[in-house]
């Protein structure tokens, strides 16, 4: 009713963000115990961080350690917070910002690979064209009949994006992607 009389104020102080957001890839080594993934993604949603890609799998079976790869976007300040907040979780052993590590090692970026399964309608002229393009992208056919193909493709996310875009006009049916697995170049581990 009287909202127009006076704009509402606030008990909080909000400062404008001046830093630019960057995309970074993090490797997180965790105990593979129930709820550990929920802790990690709950932290991201609870604190308003972004997740652009997430992969997780047990990598050291005897030690029950899983490696989570997260691609996230934020200002350098937020990215530093994300790292520290992750380190605070009890089952988290190590957090490495692969993007920062790559820069320190003099590389452009860490090695990042993704696998996708791409199902495409394939009949008539499109059939030949799809096969020819798949060959150029080094995608392999893992299932087919006279009406469709399922391609398996691995590579950098940009390559997969491109392949999917090209397949669209040829009769793309569905896509499944694993999300990014990543590590740094060179002899050292994370």
């Amino acid at each position, binding site marked *: 009713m*009287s909202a127009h*009389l*006076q*704009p*509402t*104020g*606030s*008990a*909080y*102080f*909000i*400062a404008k963000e001046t830093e630019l957001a960057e995309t970074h890839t993090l490797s997180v080594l*965790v*105990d593979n115990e*129930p*709820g550990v993934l*929920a*802790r990690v993604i*709950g*932290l991201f949603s*609870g604190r308003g961080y972004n997740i652009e890609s997430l992969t997780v799998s047990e990598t050291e079976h005897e030690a029950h350690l899983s490696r989570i790869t997260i691609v996230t976007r934020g200002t350098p*300040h937020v990215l*530093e*917070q994300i790292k*520290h*907040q992750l*380190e*605070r*979780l*009890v*089952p*988290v*052993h190590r957090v490495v910002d692969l993007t920062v590590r790559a820069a320190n090692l003099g590389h452009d970026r860490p090695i990042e690979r993704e696998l996708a399964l791409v199902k495409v309608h394939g009949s008539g002229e499109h059939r030949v064209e799809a096969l020819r393009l798949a060959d150029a992208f080094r995608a392999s056919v893992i299932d087919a009949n006279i009406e469709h193909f399922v391609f398996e493709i691995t590579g950098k996310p940009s390559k997969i994006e491109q392949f999917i875009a090209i397949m669209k006009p040829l009769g793309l049916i569905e896509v499944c992607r694993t999300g990014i697995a990543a590590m740094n170049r060179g002899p050292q581990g994370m």
Partner: protein
Amino acid sequence: MSGTENQMTGAEIVLQALKDNGVKHIFGYPGGAVLPIYDEIFQQEEIEHILVRHEQGAGHMAEGYARSTGKVGVMLVTSGPGATNAVTPLQDALMDSIPLVCISGQVPTPLIGSDAFQECDTVGITRPCTKHNWLVKDVNDLARIIHEAFRIAQSGRPGPVVVDIPKDIQFATGTYTPPSAVPTQTSYQPRTQGDLKKIEEAVELMKTARRPIIYSGGGVINSGPQASHFLRELVELTGFPITSTLMGLGAYPASGKNWLGMLGMHGTYEANMAMHDCDVMVCIGARFDDRITGRLNAFSPNSKKIHIDIDPSSINKNVRVDIPILGDVATVLEDMVRLWRAATKTVDRARLNDWWTGIAKWRARKSLAYTPSDDVIMPQYAIQRLYELTKDRDTYITTEVGQHQMWAAQFFGFEQPNRWMTSGGLGTMGYGFPAAVGVQVAHPESLVIDIAGDASIQMCIQEMSCAVQYGLPVKIFILNNQYMGMVRQWQQLLHGNRLSHSYTEAMPDFVKLAEAYGGVGIRCEKPSELDEAIRQMIDTPQPVIFDCRVANLANCFPMIPSGKAHNEMLLPDEATDEAVANAIDAKGRQLV
């Protein structure tokens, strides 16, 4: 020990693990999913169980117990509603870094996920409001998990943990593992020792500072009495002025000559001005909370900042610092004091003279002044009298949340750590009274007073019944102004004095309420009768509700209005109705 000696039921393991972790008191409420544990409690005498009236009360009692003793507080609740009622105190403890172990019952393992009676996803619900939590799936893991829970709750930055135990696990028989046989988790190794190079760097900076300030917080209290001891020594050696957050009051004595009073939104003029104008800031166990900093881009613009904290995520979170020191406050301060002593000869103390002269001018502004009255009790006066009449006693103070909390922080002088229990981070109305009950359990001979507001006290008033049952003579000192005072103050400041739902038209008769519970009620309405009434309260050996009728519309000043910096405070003598209405300009109002 033979294998059979260590065989116990899950419920027995719980009690044994609590005993082995030094627990003497637990606060709880029974229910279907914890009956086996309650049956064990019945059959032993080492641990005293305090029966609360609501699980929220159990949590705040455990918090008050923990905060006043430095030990871990323990609460015990049933599944479903028992666990959900525990959420508020868990989050409260998380934000104020209070070590708390919450044991909750859960429906039997085969029923989990079936929407069974009184089932809830306790570990899911409490995951973001605990430092860590566990659902016990094997009775042989139970002892280890409880020992880990105690270790995690009290080490590093302390916090709450939940151990959720399905009922079938409580009945099942398994092996008990003593704490000494449980290895520490490799992924959780909090660092306590500060980097000596950084500490040296900090001392070098402090030696050359001309306008230094120490800004200490709740971390000093959490770190233990040694931390307060070294803090006092550091202040003495350096001659630096010191201010503190709400949570840190008592680490440095309020009577100390270097004390500037509390800082922040309702802090003193001298503390906030010194923070704004300093050239070196030493932040010790505090986290640059938004109630402290005011407008971030105007926060202490010309200072080099040193930050001592045990939690890496607290460093550079809100404010960029120049020298971060990761470690336990007591350990780092011990190194700092030692290094300072070695350097004493090279330090010129006279360099601080101008700074202290400036501070004296700010102090002379008397930012806590208020207009006294002979007719009505001013809330500030009530706290002052309460302080004067209790300061020579063994006194513990808790508060609820609101104006009374700020007035208590401003006008009650704390000389020792662990004497002041308040909900700082979460700002939980209803915290103070149960917290006081917890303090009284830990210190049965001491004078424990909950400074309350008339609105807050009604949020956990049911624990009067608990206080009476256990003969805990807690004193509730209500500054009764009939309003949710802080809400009303903000409505006056920000919303054109439209007092939407901040007035309590129907108030219980607190005297009769006290009597109904079996306690004692006292009412006081005149300043001239206040001292006598307070003495009567102190001398009453039962729980007391003191209904102190105070000026209804008093505002809490000084205040940093939103959108303002530390040097733009609203002081009480300038706070005319017009100034209050215009304190926050259009720009400040637009802040979301």
